[in-house]
């Protein structure tokens, strides 16, 4: 037990948490944007998976940043595709989402075996690149807390920093700019923005594209930093955990960040624990993040119910 505590309170563990949280945070932000616009994006999982493979394959032939952009763009294209089917062809958004997930599950394996010349499990014989870490050596020079700061803040993926920036960027967009107001209005009560002359379908379309772009970055981080290379079904349900994190974060970007970090902690635990407790079956430990998702969602909905109970007399008093 003490070993576990020592591990958890080490700077290395913090770095691991940031690493495991980053793909989740991108996916959660993606889920948040489309959810707020009124289109629940259940395809985050498939978008991440396709973007991850795209990035890996492109990185074999191109510099890392081109690969990142390719994965990013792949997510956006999938978002636009969903928008086209949902908004133009009026297909149900959940069904469209599942179609993308099914396409991703099968399509990535097929594309992987084409790219690797027959390997249907991993991209191990492709020489793919990684996203560079950002080192901040000057931090170590600060007297006193320098070494600690350095061990906490150095060595993260460039995308982790981008993720944090995105949280605040998205917050600013949603709550401080007119298009953010439109997006939230479209999600909550589309008749109102429609009457005000705001193109509702267009707002939703771009929300889906943004959702795809963000999920795409999550997939890129997964295949070019957390692991270098692609493994079949490597997202392992993160896209669905992200949907839970959207709710757990109270449909707010800052909340989404905390929710993603919470799941990241348990994800990180499931990485370090097998070394410490060899007697616990690894499968059991790996199921921790999913158990936590279920427990967190139950607690969240209990809390929300209680909050409604407290607020309800107030509201009925207003009518």
């Amino acid at each position: 037990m003490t070993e576990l505590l020592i591990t958890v309170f080490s700077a290395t563990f913090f770095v691991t948490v940031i690493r495991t949280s980053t793909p989740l945070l991108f996916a959660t932000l993606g889920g948040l944007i489309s959810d707020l616009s009124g289109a629940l994006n259940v395809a985050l999982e498939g978008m991440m998976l396709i973007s991850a493979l795209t990035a890996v394959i492109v990185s074999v032939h191109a510099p890392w940043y081109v690969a990142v952009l390719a994965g990013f763009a792949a997510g956006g294209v999938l978002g636009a595709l969903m928008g086209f089917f949902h908004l133009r062809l009026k297909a149900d958004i959940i069904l469209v989402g599942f179609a993308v997930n099914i396409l991703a599950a099968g399509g990535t394996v097929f594309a992987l075996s084409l790219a690797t010349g027959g390997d249907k499990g991993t991209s191990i014989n492709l020489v793919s690149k990684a996203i560079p870490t950002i080192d901040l050596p000057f931090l170590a020079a600060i007297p006193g807390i320098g070494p600690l700061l350095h061990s906490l803040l150095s060595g993260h993926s460039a995308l982790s920093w981008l993720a944090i920036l995105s949280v605040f960027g998205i917050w600013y967009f949603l709550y401080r700019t007119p298009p953010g107001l439109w997006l939230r209005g479209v999600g909550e009560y589309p008749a109102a923005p429609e009457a005000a002359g705001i193109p509702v379908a267009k707002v939703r379309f771009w929300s889906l594209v943004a959702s795809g772009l963000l999920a795409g970055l999550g997939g890129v981080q997964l295949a070019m930093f957390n692991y270098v290379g692609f493994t079949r079904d490597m997202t392992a349900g993160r896209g669905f955990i992200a949907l839970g994190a959207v709710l757990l974060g109270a449909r707010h970007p800052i909340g989404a960040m905390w929710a993603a970090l919470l799941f990241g902690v348990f994800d990180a635990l499931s990485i370090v624990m097998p070394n410490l407790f060899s007697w616990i079956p690894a499968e059991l430990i790996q199921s921790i993040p999913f158990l936590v998702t279920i427990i967190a969602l139950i607690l969240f909905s209990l809390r929300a119910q209680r909050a409604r109970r407290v607020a309800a007399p107030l509201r009925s008093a207003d009518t």
Partner: protein
Amino acid sequence: MVPLIQAKSISKTYPGGTLANDRVDLTVMPGEVHAVIGENGAGKSTLMKILFGVEQPDSGELIYDGKPVGFAKPREAIDAGIGMVFQHFSLVPSFSVYENVVLGAEPRTGIRFDREKAIAEVEALSEKYRLKVDPLPPVGRIPVGQQQRVEILKALYRNARVLILDEPTAVLAPQEVEELFVAVRSLVAQGKTVIFIAHKLPEVLEISDRITVMRGGRTVGEVLSRDVDEHGLATMMVGREVTLRVDRAKDEGPVSLEVKGLHIHGESGAPICQDLNLRVRKGEILGLVGVEGNGQSELIEAVAGLRSVADGAIYVDGKDLLPLDVKARRNIGLASIPEDRIARGLAVGASVAENMVATRLDDERFVRRGLLDLKAIRAQAEQLIGRFSVKVGSPASAIGTLSGGNMQKVVVARELAEQPKLLLVNQPTRGVDLGATEFIWKSITGARDGGAAVLLCSADLGELLALSDRLVVFYRGRIVAAFVNSDELTPETLGRYMLGIETQSPETVRAALK
């Protein structure tokens, strides 16, 4: 003076073949309040939708401000200075008042939404036109009357010169109607023109300068308000003499329905109704008065068996209702005309005949050995269609093809096919035209005279005052007043209790409910 808006010989046929507007004329002068009245289906809404660019006319000419115009979509009408407030508000509930007003035309600094400027502009507008509303709280938490002001402010913020108000008083309590009229007068005083769609005649006569009457898709006349009275208008609207007067119950019967100490909780556990006590006698109509959402509908649902009860008891002729399910309650003589005929009263895709026997599927006459007796069902339907004069092609027509009034008549016919012991009625004539209203009222009083105890809930105070023998007023889930109906009882008196301005003492309530 030159008219501001002139519609000349406008015709519109909907894809279904309904001729909604048949060479309609409308002339609106600048700076007047012009009422457009007519029964449901008279074509007022279609005409307004054409003015606002929601629909396009098939033929005819629209002249606005001296120039011929045609609006392809609402945006163009808005840009030309026409604003419309629909019956269903287009407001985002969680957004603040000012956010709703400026939505789609926000003041900006750079890419930022300039909230301070938005708040200041909304305050200035609300000051100028006497539309008092706090800009900061979320719209979902302010009363309906204020939400309506937000809608009007929205139009004014977009520089509307003409405001079309679609049945604006339908959702308001009498005091709120007064406030709306104050605002309308202030708008007109400052040069705006108001088109007022309505069907409540006293209000129309009070607020408007001129009235255009429509019937069956045509304009039947234009009159100055000061030249007509209510009776004359009603006759113009319906095309024949209407009597919306019903006789009161003759004598007092024994108590039939008794509600004792009833508490109802919402899904979240919050109390909706608290400690309700009331009695309804045989052959008596008890009116449940209250602004929507104060517990009247929930009481009716609880009696019908559609909502669980937290505490208390309900008896019909001494029999405890609570342990019984809906079907068992119906078997002892409960009938119910629900609030929402489309969602709860009818199966819209099914036929008229099927709907008319839907509550009698364990009746030997219609179902034998588990099989429907189609012949008997058809005969029953034909008999009811005749008795309740439902306008329908055949008993096999789908409910969805009927007009609102005829749909409601199907519900009434089914529920009153046999004399009930206890009749629950919620919003019997919402969206129903005057002719059908007359008929439905007579059916309800007919059931009363046959010995039914009736609980009546309605958003229309005129209806409650016309039909009820006694009335109780609900405010925040409690009965705050009770009256024996009389000609001295006015909507204004009821309104004060509905808004919680006054409360009767428990003794007074008890005395009126003896």
